């Protein structure tokens, strides 16, 4: 974990308002584990006291990529960043995706920036499984070529049917599950996306004996475990619950650990 000033190498729009930001961050990029995030101080936004968290999309040598969309004040300001600008970066932060359990079959489930948050995982996996990508419409489906280039099968669903199957991502998953011949393997799922998507994956995982890891999205303050903003309710062995910090113990949790009834 380090706190640095990173120069913007370049920035490009991918599609549907999604941007990829390339940063020169030699003190951070090489240490990133799949599923970890960086905490960004957006420049020209003095009115804001908080940083903004982003999953690391790619880390190649000193270069770190973030894939994001302008949804609010901070992310919209970020779209103006140009080569030569610089920004503050803390990272890598959080506990990323655990390794695939020996003998399990990996599936990835993603919506929105979740596709970016899963890319490094897909790249580092010992075997390729299936990636289920869901979104409202075709422009929300990202990185498909990249995942396919890694040898992953990508199944796409959009709510308006403009790309892939019409419907939500769990329809695809269920259809696949009905037909799947996993040759005795159990599934290990990795999901990042809207909360409803995570919960739907969790339900299936619990019903079908999958291991399922979900990366949660909580508003963050410090990003390092100090402020206790980003907490989420997790189950304790005694049947009770306790807060865990999604920036420190998370953002990835096994779905059984989360008190979904409080989400």
């Amino acid at each position, binding site marked *: 974990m380090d706190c640095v000033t990173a120069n913007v190498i370049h920035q490009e729009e991918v599609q549907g308002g999604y941007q990829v930001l390339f940063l020169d961050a030699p003190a951070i990029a090489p240490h990133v584990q799949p599923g970890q995030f960086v905490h960004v101080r957006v420049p020209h936004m003095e009115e804001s*006291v*908080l940083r903004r968290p982003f999953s690391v999309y790619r880390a190649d040598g000193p270069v770190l990529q973030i894939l994001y969309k302008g949804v609010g004040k901070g992310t919209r300001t970020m779209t103006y960043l140009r080569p030569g600008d610089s920004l503050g970066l803390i990272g890598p932060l959080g506990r990323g995706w655990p390794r695939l359990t020996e003998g399990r079959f990996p599936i990835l489930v993603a919506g929105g920036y979740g596709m970016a948050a899963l890319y490094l995982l897909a790249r580092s996996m010992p075997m390729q499984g299936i990636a289920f990508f869901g979104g409202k419409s075709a422009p929300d489906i990202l990185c498909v070529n990249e995942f396919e280039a890694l040898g992953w099968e990508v199944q796409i669903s959009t709510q308006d049917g403009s790309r892939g199957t019409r419907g939500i991502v769990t329809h695809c998953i269920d259809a696949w599950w009905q037909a799947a011949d996993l040759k005795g393997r159990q599934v290990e799922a990795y999901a990042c996306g809207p909360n409803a998507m995570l919960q739907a994956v969790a339900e299936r995982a619990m019903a079908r004996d999958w291991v399922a890891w979900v990366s949660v999205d909580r508003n963050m303050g*410090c990003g390092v*475990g*100090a*402020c206790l*903003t980003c907490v*989420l309710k997790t189950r304790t062995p005694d049947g009770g619950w306790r807060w865990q910090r999604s920036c420190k113990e998370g953002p990835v949790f096994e779905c059984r650990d989360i008190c979904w009834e409080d989400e």
Partner: protein
Amino acid sequence: MKNPVMVASGTFGYGPEYAELVDLSQLGALVVKGIAWEPTRGNENPRTAETASGLLNAIGLPNPGAEGFVREYMPFLRQHDVPVIVNIWGRTVEEYVRVAEYFEGIEGVAALEVNVSCPNIKEGSAVFGTDLDLFRRVLDAVRSATALTLIPKLAPNVAAIADFAKAAEASGADALSLINSVPALAVDVETRRPKLANVTGGLTGPAIHPLAVKLVWDAARAVRIPVIGIGGIATPEDALEFLIVGAHAVAVGTASFTEPRTAVRVVEGIDDYLQRHNMASVQALVGTFQCN
């Protein structure tokens, strides 16, 4: 203290959280997140919301309890060359006394900051900080309970902070710290619900700095014990303002979230300033406000 710049309670965890990013030995002191006798879970989510140049929070003082804190964090803190100030709170006078007594025996605790002013405790802790009689009662009780250095932390939402400062001094406080966060409220207009689960919260950050400077000035003129200036420090200049109006030390809060090394930069900036102005020490600067 090596230097007059501390990190404020609740904004720097219990020490380990920022230790990879900030050399703790460069801090004047580390004030840990508020500790009560019993472990507490704190408020529901969401706990913070951004406002214009500020942060609204209602964390609700989650903490592992006094014994839990000592067990989990004091070994780490004792290994570092930084004075540890424990911020304590309770829901009743008895709870304050209990936790104060307990820390007297704990090695490595430099002082107790007595939080009588957190706006986010519903059981009545807020009242300790704005009702002069209750305020006196809790401080007298805590004073009798421990010989440790006692630093009451004052609430900003009073008409005359000098009265509270004097009362604290009369109760035997060794220093004062102020301000705690300012009671405030933010509403999500689409849902018409509060942005924080606790409904109201405490406002902190640069937005409140000018009002903190005013209150610190008022308090510093009212007492002889040292005052610690807190509220909205993000730059060395912000800290210098507190020192100039009479604070002997300062604490950096919210700005550590924005920039973890803010406190260290403030230390360096104060040094620069003292050199530029040919001042031998911070003492030479304290209270040099020219206001007539």
